């Protein structure tokens, strides 16, 4: 049976109750839930294996051991070849609301992007970066408090692996909407190496249980928070080192006459995780002002979305999700009726939507395979729009060939007026490389390098 917590073997297990899981209308799973109290949590945290190893003398042995353990975990989870894997997949589908095929794909993406060589290289690069900051170097924090978000199952896996390789004691607070995946993964880790697992704890409690949060905060951890604006605001008030992975989104750029293979990759980015993550694109900027070409592109995309409905099926939309989709569509129908140029293409139900219009409000975050196509006449026109959203835009995704991208990157407007975040290619946005967090978040990079962290960066 799945549990909403993982504690190392040296911990006294918390008392538990059986709970019925309900996530945004999806339900149907009984799991074991820890009944946490401050009086249990405070002494338990003191038992975490400490202190951090970092790169100090003797750390190589730890790093080798941690790499070996995580590679064994990855080998099992990326192919789901371990006892009970099928059951876990079914249960996770019930809790996340994602289809089993999508979950399988997600786990493959999470665990397929690293191996021993890549993790070693990551350590080497981190050490090298750390070396550049001789004056600013301090010890690694005695505890990291990692607050995971529930929108993307396993969003905390990569940061957790990195923290583990550096031997930094870490407490993960799971999202109450998706509390089961990480504990299950850590159980696997503990099976392979109890010592590596002894520096990691994953627990679940709600925002209203402030006493538990305060119990953790009394240990002055470095805070790493994934989540929505409310979550980030909530934790930003804590006096602590703070690494914020808050609300962000990505954008796709594409020429109008993309090859169908590229369009399929664009569709993949929109469908994966039902467009709910920071790496999910919110819109496609299509470089044309010819609406015939826009129409052709949209229809190409429709074919790709239909295909994705088979390879990455939607599990079952909740009425709340369906309601939102209908409202988003309704707004576009009205705009079209008022004389604006609007293309709105949908499947029979709420499975997917492809919409093109002369402008969109990207502050209104959409999801559930709702593709907004925003035609722009030039790179300059794109830059003007992009500057409005630059703070929130996480990565830019190029939806065509390398040759096209090279043309784009040499555009003087881009060089002069824009500091684009990391670029990636369509189809790769949901399969980030192992070190992507450092690329997009300087505060996280400082934490990994063991540098002095200002409070509330």
């Amino acid at each position: 049976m799945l549990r909403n917590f993982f504690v190392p073997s040296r911990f006294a297990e918390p008392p538990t109750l059986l709970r019925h899981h309900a996530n945004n209308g999806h339900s149907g799973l009984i799991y074991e839930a820890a009944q946490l109290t401050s009086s249990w949590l405070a002494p338990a945290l003191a038992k975490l294996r400490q202190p951090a190893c970092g790169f100090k003398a003797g750390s190589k042995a730890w790093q080798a051991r941690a790499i070996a353990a995580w590679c064994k975990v990855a080998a099992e989870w990326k192919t789901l070849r371990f006892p009970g894997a099928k059951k876990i997949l079914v249960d996770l589908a019930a809790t996340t609301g994602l289809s089993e095929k999508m979950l399988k794909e997600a786990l493959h993406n999470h665990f397929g992007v690293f191996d021993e060589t890549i993790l070693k290289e990551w350590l080497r690069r981190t050490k090298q970066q750390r070396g550049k900051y001789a004056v600013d170097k301090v010890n690694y924090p005695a505890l990291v408090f990692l607050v995971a978000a529930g929108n993307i199952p396993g969003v905390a896996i990569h940061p957790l692996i990195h923290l583990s390789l550096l031997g930094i004691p870490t407490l993960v607070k799971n999202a109450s909407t998706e509390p089961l995946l990480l504990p299950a993964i850590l159980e696997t880790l503990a099976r392979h190496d109890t010592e590596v697992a002894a520096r990691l704890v994953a627990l679940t409690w709600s925002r209203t249980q402030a006493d538990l949060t305060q119990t953790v905060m009394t240990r002055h951890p470095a805070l790493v928070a994934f989540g929505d604006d409310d979550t980030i605001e909530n934790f930003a008030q804590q006096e602590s080192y703070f690494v914020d992975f808050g609300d962000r989104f990505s954008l796709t750029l594409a020429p109008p006459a993309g090859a169908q293979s590229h369009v399929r990759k664009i569709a993949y980015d929109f469908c994966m995780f039902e467009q709910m993550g920071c790496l999910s694109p919110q819109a496609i900027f299509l470089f044309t002002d010819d609406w015939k070409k826009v129409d052709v592109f949209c229809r190409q995309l429709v074919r790709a979305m239909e295909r994705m409905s088979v390879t990455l099926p939607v599990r079952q939309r909740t009425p709340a999700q369906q309601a939102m989709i209908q409202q988003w569509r309704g707004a576009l129908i009205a705009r079209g009726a008022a004389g604006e140029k609007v293309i709105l293409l949908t499947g029979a139900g709420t499975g997917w939507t492809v919409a093109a219009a002369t402008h969109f409000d990207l502050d209104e975050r959409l999801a559930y395979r709702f593709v907004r196509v925003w035609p722009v006449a030039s790179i300059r026109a794109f830059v003007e729009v992009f500057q409005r959203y630059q703070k929130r835009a996480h990565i830019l995704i190029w939806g065509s060939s390398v040759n096209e991208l090279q043309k784009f990157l040499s555009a003087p407007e881009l060089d002069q007026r824009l500091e684009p975040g990391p670029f990636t290619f369509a189809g790769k946005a949901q399969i980030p490389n192992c070190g992507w967090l450092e690329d997009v978040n300087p505060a996280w990079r400082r934490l990994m390098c063991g540098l002095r962290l200002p409070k509330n960066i």
Partner: protein
Amino acid sequence: MRAVRQINKKILRFIQTVPMTEFADGAFQQLALELFQYQYENNAVYRGVCLQQNLTPNVITAWRDIPAVTTSAFKEVPLICFPMNEAIAVFHTSGTTQRRAGKHYFRTLDFYRAAMGRSFAEFCLTPHKKMRLLFLGPTAEYFLNSSLGYMFSGWRDEFGDEQSASFFSPAGVDAAALQNGLEIAIRENIPVFILGTALALLECMEVFQRQKRRFKLPCGSRILDTGGYKGRRIEVGRNEFQDRLCASFGISREYLLNEYGMTELSSQFYESSLPENSFAPRSAHFASPWVRAVAVDPENLAVLPDGEIGLLRIFDLANVDSVMAVQTEDLGRAWQDRIELIGRASGAELRGCSLLTEMISPRT
């Protein structure tokens, strides 16, 4: 122009005179189809919406089939049957700093006033003609573009006694003044009617709780709340909220009323189980006979049979100069004369008047 005057007259008379228990299709159907024809002809955006679906007055023969616009459409485009410069009032949805507000334009507020007055008197005021109304929500003096503000002020003018007052301003809720008002009413043994947003009521109850102050309001006193609070700073379940109201103000549960309405509509639904009335079941929100609701399948927007759960679609004859048929994002069941609310799309932006309260309340 003559046709406009005619439909206006017919609908106003219907709202003012139809028996409150009259839910047969006959007269409503006829007026709904006439109003659809009028809106199709005079509201260019709505006509465009209808044409996209090939649903024109020639093919629509029943009120249930009249095409609806989503509440989100009110944020995007003006949905009006008259030149915009003739608008005498515009009500805005609460919105947030990040989101655009929806706008509902009015050429006349006669229908709105008639609808809100008649239904309030019927569902909430019985057996009184006037009461001491104490408001914990926006009023028109401060909140010109708030439909709730207009409604509260209208009720105060029509049904409030001379001591009726508002304890809500842009500065927030004035719990001390409310306390004073309640103490006077208790001393004089005059039943009071507290009307407010759920958030404002919660805020007052918290103040009273801190002061360990409880009231025993005079017999016949009642409380009406409106707007939601889930997902905001304060979250309590409906049952707990009602228990707290009963405990704080010393009234029994049948004197708790709830209003369901939205800026995009001109009429309201009421949850009302006053002993003086005979509306049942308690969980239902009752419609007035110039309003109908259906539930539609959220997947494809097909109309569902009575009693099945779906997204609520409201047909409001008092929405004369905008669009009568409004597709909400609220989940519920619908019958001829009532709806049962199940919930609002979680994750969708929070709408409704409670947000207004929170926006101006100091953050704790």
